[in-house]
């Protein structure tokens, strides 16, 4: 009898031990798998698919699965990321990003007007600057996404602000750089392979080449509407066609009553910009191909001199129509990517602009521009580098300072010269770069156009920039 009781006790103990072991194993398995799939756990918030699979296979009971799921959700909720509560449950994903850049800049300007031999011909300055950009992309359901980005500097073609002021914070203001809503889809109506529609303050969808974008400064974010339609393998394999268009407000003068004191007479007119680009891209091998993108940019300006807010424009508006043809060929040389690029363009209203600006009714319209350049390498990942050499030529009335790269010739017309740039990626996120811009007047009887207000009109301008930047 005693033996029987002992045997029963032993069996009961063994049974309890087995149950305990079984339970421990289930939990260990679930937790181990959950740890392995941390990425999906973070994305799902509860490791859902994994637990569902374990429940389906009978490894866990539904209730056990639910308890693990709840614990994991609670653990995640106690992390900094998990504590973030999005304003809308429609947000499916968020990407937070940013970059910072510290810059030393040397500027040298030789005065175009002062007679030769004068001491005042040359001005030099050293600038210490930085920029900060912090952005977030929100992915919604139903192919929508939105983006915001905050930037130092209010200028349209720069994000840099000056250091100094004995550590003061003047000039360190944060401005809105991007604020847009976008719809993107593929295989739409069986007609378009890709569609992207964007509204708001956005990154330009147009393709341009050259250091800093040359004809569309990479800091210039248009405000309005953009459309991008794409077709893949059109006629031939690897031949892709894209059509991009945009409608942007560039001078909003009708937003309030215009004060007479500002010298405004009559009804002011808002100014718009319309863009259209057709890009053909053909890859004859991996990372080898070419693209060409005829582009039209039209600005309906107000030539009556009534731009109420022209003080914020880098150049007064006029009715301009730019026809530009950026193109490039790319292939690998010695295992490094090489890009040979160039652009030809002209302002179809250059003659009108010339007359308006200079009164030279019968002179040349001075309305053409071009650049040619080459970039070898790509300073993206740790240890990689790139080097660029580029020549630019921009006649007096060929383009607008509101869009052109502001580092070359002050973004002005009547300038030609060279640009060189070398970049090295210290890590995947940290980069060193040195860039040099050298410009001279094309027409040496004139200064740059538009002429600087209260500054030195250059005959020769040099800019050297040394950058330390990091992405996060």
């Amino acid at each position, binding site marked *: 009898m005693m033996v029987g009781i002992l045997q029963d006790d032993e069996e009961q103990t063994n049974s309890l031990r087995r149950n305990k072991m079984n339970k421990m194993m289930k939990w260990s398995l679930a937790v181990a798998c959950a740890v392995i799939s941390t990425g999906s756990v973070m994305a799902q918030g509860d490791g859902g698919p994994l637990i569902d699979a374990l429940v389906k296979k009978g490894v866990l009971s539904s209730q056990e699965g639910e*308890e693990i799921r709840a614990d994991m959700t609670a653990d995640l*909720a106690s992390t900094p990321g998990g504590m973030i509560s*999005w304003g809308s*449950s429609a947000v499916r994903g968020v990407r937070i990003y940013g970059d910072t850049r510290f810059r030393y800049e040397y500027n040298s300007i030789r005065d175009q007007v002062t007679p030769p031999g004068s001491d005042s011909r040359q001005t030099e300055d050293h600038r210490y600057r930085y920029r900060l950009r912090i952005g977030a992309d929100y992915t919604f359901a139903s192919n929508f996404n939105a983006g915001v980005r905050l930037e130092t500097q209010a200028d349209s073609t720069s994000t840099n602000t000056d250091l100094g002021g004995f550590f003061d914070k003047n000039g360190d203001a944060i401005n809105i750089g991007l604020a847009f809503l976008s719809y993107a889809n593929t295989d739409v109506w069986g007609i378009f392979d890709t569609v992207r529609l964007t509204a708001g303050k956005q990154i330009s969808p147009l393709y341009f080449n050259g250091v800093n974008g040359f004809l569309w400064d990479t800091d210039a974010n248009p405000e309005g509407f953009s459309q991008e339609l794409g077709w893949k393998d059109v006629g031939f394999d690897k031949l892709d066609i894209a059509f991009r268009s945009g409608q942007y407000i560039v001078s909003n003068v009708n937003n309030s009553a215009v004060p007479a004191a500002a010298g405004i007479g009559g009804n002011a007119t808002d100014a718009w910009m319309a863009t259209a680009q057709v890009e053909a891209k053909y890859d004859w091998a991996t990372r080898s191909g070419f693209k060409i993108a005829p582009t039209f940019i039209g600005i309906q300006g107000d030539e009556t001199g009534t731009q109420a807010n022209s003080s914020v424009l880098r150049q007064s508006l006029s009715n301009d129509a730019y026809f530009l043809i950026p193109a490039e060929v790319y292939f690998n040389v010695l295992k490094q990517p090489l890009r040979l690029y160039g652009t030809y363009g002209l302002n179809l209203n250059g003659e009108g602009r010339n007359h308006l600006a200079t009164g030279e009714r019968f002179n040349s319209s001075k309305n053409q521009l071009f650049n040619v350049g080459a970039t070898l390498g790509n300073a993206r990942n740790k240890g990689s580098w790139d080097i660029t050499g580029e020549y630019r030529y921009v006649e007096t009335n060929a383009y607008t300072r509101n869009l052109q790269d502001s580092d070359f010739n002050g973004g002005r017309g009547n300038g030609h010269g060279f640009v060189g740039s070398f970049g090295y990626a210290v890590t995947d996120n940290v980069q060193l770069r040195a860039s040099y811009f050298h410009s001279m007047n094309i027409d040496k009887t004139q200064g740059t156009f538009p002429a600087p207000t209260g500054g030195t009109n250059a005959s020769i301008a040099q800019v050297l920039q040394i950058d330390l930047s990091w992405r996060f």
Partner: protein
Amino acid sequence: MKKTILCLFAVALTLGSAQAEKLVIKGSDTLGAKMVPQLAEAFKAKNPGTTFEIAAEGSTTGIAAITDGTADIGMSSRRARGSEVAIAATKGVKMVPTIVSFDGMGIIVNTGNSLTGISKADVNKIFTGDVTDWSQVGGKPGKISVYTRNTASGTYQDFKDLAMNKRDYAKAAQKMAGNEQIAAEVGKNPNGIGYVGMAYLKAPGIKTLPVDGSLPTKASVQAKKYPYARPNFFYTNGAPTGKTKEFIDFLLGPSGHIIVDQVGFVPAK
């Protein structure tokens, strides 16, 4: 004499506290419209001192009630979201789920509808608005009227997750307060379509469409073969205790299972 007075006082206190034993249950309409009230009646019959206050206004309200401490049990036909768990944690509330039953969201149409079955892909297209006419899914021509639950409903969210690849509902979809309203509207509208829990599939004027050949039945839900099957939850602040635990134990016990089964849900094992 003193002893007698003390005894009477103790009895009075006990009776008083017994009479004050009230369980406050808030949340899901799916659970709170039929299943929980019937369980409460049965529980009261065995525990005469217990009273219930039941408010079925959607799963979101049930989870919020646990966070706010205004309910003992939060009924929910969906899981608490990470953001809800995080908000609760900031208030010192630990959301603990107990699976109380399983359910299958049945796709219902009017009995006059010529369709005899539907695919998951077509369900997705109809409820997201990609398809707006019955002829596009093999039915007789007619503009489809989509009926859904409102946004406070767990079923509303679960259906998006399980059937619509998390896409938004069609703009023209009409939002109803509860399962019964959806069943009633579909029963009246020959071009109507909606989804309801298994407990509401026998409403007049409607029929349930097999989804990729599978109907929401006890067997298909238990075997996890029906595509729109899901667990239903009671949420509590921490592990259930006292009368709350007694009620949940009753629900998960043999007597509770019978009621859960009778009202059309699949009992939790």
